[in-house]
């Protein structure tokens, strides 16, 4: 079965400093991995996705993530945090069953990112 583990429930950074949000996955198959962001009182927005193409994936708003099979990791990074980045971030894996996709997204528990001025 597929699963994701977000290693930090809260991360606090200063504006202008790098962001690192950690995610490890478990999958019996080659996974499809995503990062979603949820701003307060808003729906989920896709930041980026990995679907077995390039291992370094660039997303919106300057975020990127690197798929490392040897470490079963898919960490999200950004070189310089902005105040508007403060939100909750979810690492997500697409569930796969023998014979094909089930279209079910499995969410991590989320990481709340705080950005200090």
């Amino acid at each position: 079965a597929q699963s994701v583990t977000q290693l930090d429930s809260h991360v606090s950074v200063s504006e202008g400093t790098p962001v690192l949000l950690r995610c490890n996955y478990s999958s019996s198959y080659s996974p499809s991995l995503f990062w979603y962001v949820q701003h307060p009182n808003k729906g989920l927005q896709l930041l980026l996705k990995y679907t077995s193409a390039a291992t370094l994936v660039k997303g919106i708003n300057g975020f990127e993530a690197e798929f490392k099979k040897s470490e079963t990791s898919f960490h999200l990074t950004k070189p310089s945090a902005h105040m508007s980045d403060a939100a909750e971030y979810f690492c997500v894996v697409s569930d796969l069953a023998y014979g094909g996709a089930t279209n079910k997204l499995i969410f991590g528990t989320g990481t709340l990112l705080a950005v200090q001025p």
Partner: protein
Amino acid sequence: EAGVTQSPTHLIKTRGQQATLRCSPISGHTSVYWYQQALGLGLQFLLWYDEGEERNRGNFPPRFSGRQFPNYSSELNVNALELEDSALYLCASSLSGGSSYNEQFFGPGTRLTVL
């Protein structure tokens, strides 16, 4: 282009009542998904509809049900409400299912409170 819309924004019910939540997908999308975001439980997959049929179901009791209409909009019904059903219910839509690579676009959610 309009995104995924959900109604109502907020819904307050009492234990034992029924709740009906509605979702309109992005134009051209035929798949609709429902997720529950409950405090302490995170985001959990509820249901997936595609072309009017239920394709997959999460680990929820049968009192959680739904349907998809010919125009691809969807309804989620929760019968015999319990206090722990209080949560944000998110709807998402995508192009036709069957692939793990179709991006799911999420609506703003319906906040259900059960008193």
